[in-house]
């Protein structure tokens, strides 16, 4: 409480100051996410874990103050009495100033002291970011300098330690990143070329338990991107020096292993048509701010960004069987794998208005295909040795084909149809060893209609069905959403895992029902919902974590100022 009063005094002090100068500017946001969990025996629910700990809340207050070229900010966070479900235990009960910075920025220089976020290239070498839905905040505390050395050259250097809950990681991170506009510099007009190079190193002292571990792990990478007319693409390749192998805090091997990653992208875009393909290969590509953090399920102290390259699905049932990238190396009796390789392609196409298929308003089609497999490798488990092929024919981990058709029928009626056929490895989707437990094949169909009423009122209805023979078999779901105006809306859904008609086996059929409402106006958004949440792999931006099933009341308040 004292802290809050102090910060409030500080605030009012700051604002008077701001008003005096009449040029400062104050901004930030306040976010509160809370849960009141109910004990529900109809769910796969760990009663003991929740009795007496049913209320959970995350609160964030970010305050920034800008005066000319300087900006300062502080973020206060509290997770009292506990963090909401699925957050790393490091956050539970935490309360305090988590984060602060001072930044100077002019035309060519951008200097930050304190906590900062940054990303090199596609993030395969380094990314620090915040995702409150996922419980990731791996900002680095230290110094970051970004310098636009010339019109064609941009340089970044950073040094610091990564945040881990309310503490800081033991590893010290150094990074350098350079971006160079080749075409401009060399006066090439026929093609637009950009070159980038990055270096990231982690220093962590050796400890008595693992005297073999290298103190420095260095990673370097380079990338080249081009645009030529309607065609564009890029290639990125990275390598990481040798490091010992940990899994969830346990030393798996005293031997050291290096890692590589590679990503190639190629696309074509013209009016009415866009195509994009990506290929990626990862071998032993886990990179954490602390060597012992490797493989932790909460993504704590993760230093780079290795998202699943598959379509991010939007519906209740297309979100059940999703992919989670598998970059890590595992060599033990239970599990042997060394990375992943695969590809995905997206196509977007507009059928013109006035054609037979397009009708009066046209029609929009989006299709996506992705295929990911483990690396084909030979393992010598006893000696903790492996050898991987570049592509080979490793176990299939994920395959997805989906098509989405959007059509407007009249001024009032819009529809979306989605079909998805997906195969996912059981280990990826449900946990446990990957690539050895068999897979789940599912087909999903979704039909959505939006009907506009008077003024801004509208009704959205979604019907969905998932067919599967394994795991929890068949599902169906119905969503109805009513928008009273642009500010207030309500929804209700039932997501029913009915398995099969007339099912009377040992497992239960489960209804995941939910009802919610939201109100938003200007800078304020308030939302609440009540009901059951399906557990499992929850992914945001391609990064996933397992969340237990729950039932209860959730509330969110967000105010930006």
């Amino acid at each position: 409480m004292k802290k809050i009063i102090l910060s409030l005094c500080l605030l009012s002090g700051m604002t008077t100051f701001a008003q005096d100068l009449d040029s400062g500017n104050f901004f930030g946001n306040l976010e509160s996410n809370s849960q009141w969990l109910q004990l529900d025996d109809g769910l796969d629910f760990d009663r003991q874990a929740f009795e007496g700990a049913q209320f959970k809340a995350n609160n964030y207050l970010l305050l920034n103050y800008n005066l000319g070229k300087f900006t300062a900010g502080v973020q206060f966070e509290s997770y009292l009495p506990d963090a909401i479900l699925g957050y790393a235990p490091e956050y539970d009960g935490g309360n305090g100033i988590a984060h602060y910075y001072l930044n100077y920025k002019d035309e060519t220089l951008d200097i930050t002291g304190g906590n900062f976020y940054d990303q090199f290239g596609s993030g395969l070498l380094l990314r620090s970011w915040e995702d409150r839905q996922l419980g990731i905040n791996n900002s680095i505390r230290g110094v970051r300098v970004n310098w636009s050395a010339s019109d064609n050259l941009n340089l970044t250097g950073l040094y610091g330690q990564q945040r881990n809950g309310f503490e800081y990681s033991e590893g010290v991170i150094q990074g350098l990143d350079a971006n160079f506009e080749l075409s401009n510099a060399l006066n090439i007009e026929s093609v637009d070329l950009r070159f980038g190079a990055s270096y990231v190193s982690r220093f962590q002292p050796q400890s008595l338990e693992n005297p073999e571990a290298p103190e420095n792990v260095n990673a370097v990478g380079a990338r080249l991107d081009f645009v030529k007319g309607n065609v564009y693409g890029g290639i990125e390749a990275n390598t990481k020096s040798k490091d010992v192998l940990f899994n969830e805090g346990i030393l798996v091997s005293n031997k050291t292993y290096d890692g590589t990653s590679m990503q190639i992208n190629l696309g074509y875009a013209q009016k009415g048509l866009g195509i994009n393909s990506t290929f990626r290969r990862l071998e032993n590509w886990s990179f954490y701010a602390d060597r012992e953090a490797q493989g932790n399920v909460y993504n704590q102290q993760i230093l780079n960004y290795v998202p699943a390259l598959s379509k991010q699905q939007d519906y209740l049932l297309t979100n059940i069987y999703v992919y989670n990238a598998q970059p890590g190396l595992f060599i033990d009796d239970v599990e042997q794998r060394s990375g992943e390789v695969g590809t995905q392609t997206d196509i977007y196409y507009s059928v013109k208005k006035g054609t037979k298929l397009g009708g009066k308003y046209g029609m929009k089609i989006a299709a996506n295909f992705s295929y990911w497999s483990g690396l084909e490798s030979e393992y010598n488990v006893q000696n903790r040795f492996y050898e991987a092929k570049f592509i080979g024919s490793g176990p299939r981990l994920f395959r997805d084909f989906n098509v989405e058709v959007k059509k407007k029928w009249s001024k009032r009626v819009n529809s979306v149809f989605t079909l998805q056929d997906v195969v996912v490895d059981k280990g990826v989707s449900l946990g446990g060893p990957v690539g050895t437990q068999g897979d789940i094949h599912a087909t999903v169909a979704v039909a959505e209609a939006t009907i506009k009423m008077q003024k801004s009122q509208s009704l959205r209805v979604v019907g969905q069905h998932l067919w599967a023979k394994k795991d929890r078999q068949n599902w169906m779901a119905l969503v109805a959403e009513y928008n009273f105006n642009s500010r207030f809306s309500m929804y209700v859904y039932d997501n029913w895992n009915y398995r099969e008609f007339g099912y009377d086996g040992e497992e239960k059929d489960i209804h995941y029902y939910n009802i919610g409402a939201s109100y938003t106006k200007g800078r304020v958004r308030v939302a609440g919902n009540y009901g059951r949440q399906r557990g499992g792999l929850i992914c945001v931006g391609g990064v996933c974590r397992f969340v237990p099933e729950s039932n209860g009341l959730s509330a969110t308040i967000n105010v930006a100022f």
Partner: protein
Amino acid sequence: MKKIAFLFAILLTFNAFAQEELPNVSLKTLDGVDTTIIKEASKDNVVIVSLWATWCVPCIKELDAISEVYEEWQDETNVELLAVSVDDSRTVKRVKPLINGKGWEYDILLDTNNDLKRALGASTVPLTLLIKNGKIVYRHSGYTPGSENELYEKIQELSL
């Protein structure tokens, strides 16, 4: 209860000096050139800044809906739309084929590590801002079908 009252007190205090200035944040154009939101959005006419993402269904609906009337809007009010994608590197490669496939005529900017999103305190997308003379004059988060009409009424007011 005390806490709640306290929060409201904070809220009320803050509303008095709500953010009007555009934050000093760097973005990239679709071709990878560095720019800032201040540079791109400070114009005499009204500028719509829409934070969106390829994976955000209501965002796409909003931009699709505006796309159908965008020519009219431009003819009547000279308004411009800056669509700032908050896609991170997982999905940012979809931005170019998507806007082409959809035939959108907007200027596109990239906020790949969400610096602008953070600076605007936006927890969700879509977030729609109206900018006039470099100041944020209107702000709305979320999209419901038909709310583009309300947005346009605001634009007309501001364009007078």
